[in-house]
């Protein structure tokens, strides 16, 4: 698309606000006491869901860009990736501050007993260096290493799904949906990797 700088800036602001909407709605529900019987769980789950959704959306930009031949889509990679990190951070903070009430005793009791929490923590930790190095300056400074570093997002995609599948009591349609979507998004990378190296296909 041929748009001016100002037009792109406006579009980015709109996308930014749209991505913030789930958080604002959650904030409104919290203030109006609309989170139901288990408000912390609602906050925690809804933030986790959005972290996973933004991870999926972020990971679908490249395949969509190539599929639809819309190079402009890559303009939104940083913002969507950072939103995945934002929702993951809020998900993590709700767990530590509200669910565990900042109790170290509760942390050391609960976390080692829950492999899925460990995998969730790992996912969050993997996203931190990606968020920190998301600026243009860092991108320039790291050069080729930047691309290698940011491949960590594929690992985070896998661990996010493992975290989800491990915590549910029975397999749900939502879980199958996200697991399949993530599988397709990551399989696409494997496919292009092998194709580029003429290893198969």
């Amino acid at each position, binding site marked *: 698309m041929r748009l001016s700088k100002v037009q792109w800036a406006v579009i980015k602001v709109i996308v930014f606000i749209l991505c913030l909407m789930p958080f604002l709605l959650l904030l409104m529900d919290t203030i109006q006491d609309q989170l139901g*019987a288990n*408000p912390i769980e609602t906050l925690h789950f809804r933030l986790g869901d959005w972290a996973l959704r933004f991870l999926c959306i972020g990971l679908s930009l490249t395949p969509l860009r190539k599929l639809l031949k819309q190079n402009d889509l890559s303009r939104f990679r940083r913002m969507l990736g950072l939103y995945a990190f934002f929702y993951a951070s809020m998900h993590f903070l709700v767990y530590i501050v509200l*669910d565990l009430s900042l109790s170290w005793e509760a942390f050391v009791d*609960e976390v080692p*007993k829950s492999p899925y929490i460990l995998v969730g923590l790992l996912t969050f930790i993997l996203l931190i260096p990606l968020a920190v190095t998301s600026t243009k300056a860092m991108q320039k400074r790291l050069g080729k290493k930047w691309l290698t570093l940011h491949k960590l997002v594929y690992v985070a995609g896998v661990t996010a799904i493992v975290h989800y599948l491990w*915590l549910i009591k*029975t397999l749900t349609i939502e879980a199958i949906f996200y697991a399949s979507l993530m599988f397709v998004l990551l399989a696409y990378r494997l496919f292009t990797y092998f194709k580029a190296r003429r290893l198969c296909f």
Partner: protein
Amino acid sequence: MLFKMKKDILTGEITDKLVFQNRRKIIKAVTATAMASFIPASMSAQIKKYAEIPLGPYSASLQVTDIEYVKNYTNYYEFTTNKNDSTILSKALKTSPWSVTVEGEAEKTGVFNLEDILKTNPLEQRIYRFRCVEAWSMVVPWIGFPLANMLKQFKPTSKAKYVEFTTIYNPNVMPGQRGTALEWPYLEGLRMDEAMHPLSLMATGMYDDELANQNGAPLRLVVPWKYGFKSIKAIVKIRFSETMPATAWNKAGPNEYGFYANVNPEVPHPRWSQSRERILGASIFTPKRNTEKFNGYGAQVASLYSAMDLKKYF
């Protein structure tokens, strides 16, 4: 018997039969009148079926959870795995007339109308803690009768070592039963001494009223010292057996959900701690409560398991 049966209350204080049989018409009529005269409908919806039921023994003097939370946060996998949606989906279940089939090692087996069962089992209110295996808890004022009272009426034989309960199977109205979340129909069971324990309750109501469908209407089990999944909903069959029943969650995850499923902070679920529980309806800044062994009913029930390794028989 460890508790008194208050038969006198039944005749005098229970809703008149005619009023009861026409309760829906009456509520409709009253609501319509109220609407017509611009009185808020909520003021007229005060006719509660069990408002006069006396408080029974073993009631904990605890602050009960807000009824809206208890009604809209249910695990009813027959309808959905979503705790909220079962409220609407379960409205499709017809709970009257209702009968219970009694089978197995008992002298009086057959099909019994729920109404007949209720005639010989005086109701009482019991305020119990309820602790889910998912680490949340609530306090519910149940209306029901001791399970032992009813089971004795069927005259179980000496061979009856366990009692098994079955939930209604009707995939036409229960969409979850068309899926494979669990093996259907839902089955639960108790050892005979657990079933005969005076704390074990058969509930038909809560909060002075009939059970809502999503809470297990018209007849559900309540075993307050065990995780919530033992408290099976919408019971249509009771079977006395010599062998331990294969229960639904135990079949789905034998290393995660035991037959006994006693609330125990010392035995974690393989995937999460059971040391603490989230109190339903509490503010977001309320810390979790420390879970009590046997959900706080240890003084009454611990002796049932005195010779058992509770880590092995979880």
